[in-house]
C-alpha cells in the first residue's frame, strides 16, 4: 500500500496565468504583457520590481486567495531584497501548494 497525494485544485498553468494577469495590473504603466511572464521570470531582473510593486501584488494575492495562500508566511523571514530576487515560478508553486487539497489514497 502506498500513500499518494492527489491535487485537485488549480494547475500550475492556471495559477501562473492568474498571477501574470495580476503582474500586468501591478505594472500597468510600464510592465510587460501578461503573456510574456513565465515561471522563470525574475521580479528583480526581468520585471524591475520595486518593493512598492510587491505590496501591490501582495494585496491582489490576498484579495484573490486570502489566507488559503498565506502570503505573510511566504514572506516571513525574507528580507525585501530576497523577496525581490524571487522568480514568478517560486510564487506560483507557493500558491499551488497552499491551494492544494491533499488526500491520502490507498491502492
Amino acid at each position: 500500500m502506498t500513500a499518494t497525494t492527489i491535487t485537485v485544485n488549480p494547475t500550475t498553468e492556471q495559477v501562473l496565468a492568474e498571477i501574470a494577469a495580476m503582474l500586468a495590473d501591478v505594472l500597468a504603466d510600464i510592465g510587460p504583457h501578461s503573456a510574456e511572464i513565465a515561471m522563470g521570470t525574475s521580479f528583480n531582473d526581468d520585471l524591475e520590481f520595486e518593493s512598492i510593486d510587491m505590496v501591490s501584488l501582495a494585496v491582489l494575492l490576498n484579495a484573490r486567495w486570502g489566507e488559503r495562500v498565506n502570503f505573510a508566511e511566504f514572506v516571513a523571514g525574507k528580507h525585501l531584497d530576497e523577496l525581490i530576487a524571487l522568480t514568478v515560478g517560486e510564487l506560483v508553486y507557493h500558491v499551488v501548494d497552499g491551494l492544494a487539497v491533499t488526500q491520502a489514497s490507498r491502492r
Partner: protein
Amino acid sequence: MTFHEVAGLRFHVERLGPSDRPPAATVVLVHGFPADTLATYYFTVAPALAEAGLDVVMYDQRGHGRTTRPDSGYQLERFVEDLPALLDELGIAGPVHLVGNCFGGMVAFGMAVLHPDRVASIFAIESEPATPDWAIQLAPSLHHGRTDPNLEESIASITAEHGSHMGRLALRAARMLRTTSLARDILASELLLDPMEFWQIRCPVFAVYAADSDLVGLADRLPHALPDCRTAVVAEQDHFVLSGAPEQISALILDWLAEQGVAVTLPTTPGLRAAS
C-alpha cells in the same frame, strides 16, 4: 490597494489588523524620504503589529510610492498636515500612536507640535525633530542628487555595490529631486525647530538608534532635550535598522505600546522576543 483623496492628492493607504478581534489601538507607520514607501513597513513590522491586535495604518507620503507626486509643496509642514487630514478621511478621530522612520519620525514630531491632541505617543526609528541644522547638513546631498552630471555612473556604482534594486531606488530618489521642488522646499520649511523649542513635543517618545549609524549619539542627547523621552540602541545595525532587524524593532514597538497602556498581545514566539 486603497486610495483616499486628501489635500488635492490621491494617497495610497494600506491597513492591516487583527482578523479575530477588534483592534486594541491605531498605530500609524510613517516612512522616510526621498525614495522610501510604505513597503518598508509592509514587509517588516506591520504583520507582527497587526497580529498583536493593532489597527495598522500605512500610507505613501506625498510624492512617494503610489501617492500623487505634485511638482511642489514639500515643506515639512505640508507632509505633517497630510496626516490629520488623512486620519479624518479614514474616520480615525482619537489620538493615535505614531511610528516614524528617519524623515517619517520628523513628520511624527511635527504632528506632535501642530496637533498634540491627536498624538498618543511617538516611536521614532533613526530620527530626531527636524532642526535648521539638519536641513543645512542635508542640503548638499539634496543638491548633489538634483544636479549630479554623472547620474548614470553614480547609479551604476550603487547597483554594483548594493544590487539592482537599490540602484532603482537611488534612481527614483534622483528623479524625485529633479522633477519636484522637494530639495528647495525642505530648506524653506517653517516647522524646523530650534532644540530650545523641543519642549513643545510633550507626548511620550521612544527613540531607537542603530549602533553603527551616524545618529547613535542622539541616544544620549535626545532624552535631555525632550520632556518625556527614552532611547535604545540596537547592536550590529546601521541606519537601515528597520529592514535589518524587523523582529527586534517590532518587539520594541509592542513593549512600548504595552507600556502606554495598549492591550497588545505580546508574541510568544522566541524569535520575536529578541529585543535587547
